[in-house]
């Protein structure tokens, strides 16, 4: 993100960011083995709700897309559809090493090796599957980033859509997600109109 954007935030943006950070809803899309860590984080022992984080069912209502582990090509197609259905500002959080460099499945023909070549990832949580404490500390740092207005990876999807699209086509060819991402970018003012 351009440095300029960070400094020019108005007072109202700052107040808004601090309010917005107190409520994050995550789409608990259990793609990989990390999903099992989520229930203890949400329930009484670790109580994720203290920070305003709640599991949500549909992409329309979610802010965070949790990718909890390895992603097969087939699942990636669905994840991209889900990601595009989410309402911005949205953040992708990758669990464990599988999303960073393929992890344990580094030489498997079915999984994708680096998540950020297909989706703009906001944050990675280390750990071959991060424990609830790690998840909570990760989310807290995400909350601070939002508070400071630095969590703008979702804009990257619009700005470098060709890069992401090329990688996606390379992996599984064209899919019809009924979303014209560049047009959306222009419509919502994320990209300047027709550079």
């Amino acid at each position, binding site marked *: 993100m351009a440095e300029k954007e960070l400094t020019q935030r108005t007072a109202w943006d700052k107040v808004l960011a601090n309010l917005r950070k*107190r*409520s994050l809803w995550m789409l608990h899309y259990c793609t990989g083995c990390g999903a099992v860590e989520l229930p203890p984080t949400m329930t009484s022992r670790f109580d994720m709700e203290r920070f305003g984080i709640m599991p949500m069912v549909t992409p329309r209502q979610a802010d965070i897309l949790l990718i909890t582990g390895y992603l097969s090509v087939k699942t990636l197609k669905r994840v991209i559809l889900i990601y595009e259905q989410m*309402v911005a500002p949205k953040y992708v959080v990758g669990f464990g090493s599988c999303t960073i460099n393929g992890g344990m499945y580094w030489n498997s023909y079915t999984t994708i090796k680096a998540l950020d070549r297909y989706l703009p990832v906001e944050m990675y949580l280390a750990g071959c599957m991060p424990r609830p404490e790690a998840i909570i500390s990760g989310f807290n740092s995400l909350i601070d980033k939002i508070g400071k207005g630095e969590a703008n990876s979702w804009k990257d999807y619009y700005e470098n859509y060709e890069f992401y699209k090329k990688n996606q086509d390379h992996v599984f060819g064209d899919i019809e997600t009924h979303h014209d991402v560049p047009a959306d970018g222009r419509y919502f003012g994320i990209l300047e109109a027709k550079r």
Partner: protein
Amino acid sequence: MNSGIGLIVWIIAYPFVSFSLGVLLGGYGRKLTARIQRRVGPSWIQPFFDVVKLMSKKTNVSHGYMHDVAMMMLVGGTLLTMYFVPVPGFHYFSQFGDYIVIMYILLVPPLGMALGVGQTANPNGSIGIARALQMLAGYEVTFVLTFIGFAMKNGTTSMYELMMIQQSGGVATWGLVTNPLLGVAALFCLQGMMNEKPFEVVIAPHEIATGPMTEMGGKYLGMMFIQHLINLVVELTIYMNLFLGGATNWFEYVAKLFALFTLVMSVNAVYGRFRTDSALRFFWKLPLPMAALGVILIMINGI
């Protein structure tokens, strides 16, 4: 606050007062549920943060003009009901619409939501609306029967007059005390009206992906939250006015609000979810006969 400048000021301020009361109630409710589940629970004003986050979403998704108008109708309908329900010191509008008007205005928001959800063309939403309308036949019918009995006994259908009659003798003349059968039956219906856990089949996240709210994202969900919060206050106030003698001052009003809400939320926290037809059967087996008995008693000796 019933005439002149006081009225104008109150009319402008009332939505904000009601919204903030709603936020407090919402927060308190989630805190209470958390405490029951031995959790810390979110902050007291968590709903406020949720609303702000939702309303500040950048790329909102709409499915058509009816979807948008429906949201306006949703919030507008609830605010309309809010103005007509008397609260301590403010009952200006109840001369223009008695409880039958309120009962029908209460149907405007669900109708608006139903039309909006219809346009989102998502079957989960339609199933949710179908369930909501069927549940209507359960709790709404019983609640109306309790009101009919009460109105017949006091010879008026205006909510404000009913309130005044109950306040005439202090606690002894509260609706719940004079007609316990009607009061208790109405309590069951209150649980249904608030869409809380035993009768929460309408939203049912696990089965139909939060039912009507499946396709509601960003500011659409935000407006539904605003409506939900104000609705909490309005429905609790309705029950209070009809059965707990309304409130003479604001402390009594807020106290009764939180008392009622504690009862509702504690039931919500510990119960599972009825299927639609079993919920209907429950309403027609217990509260309806209880209310009918209450009305018969009123007819027999006018107690």
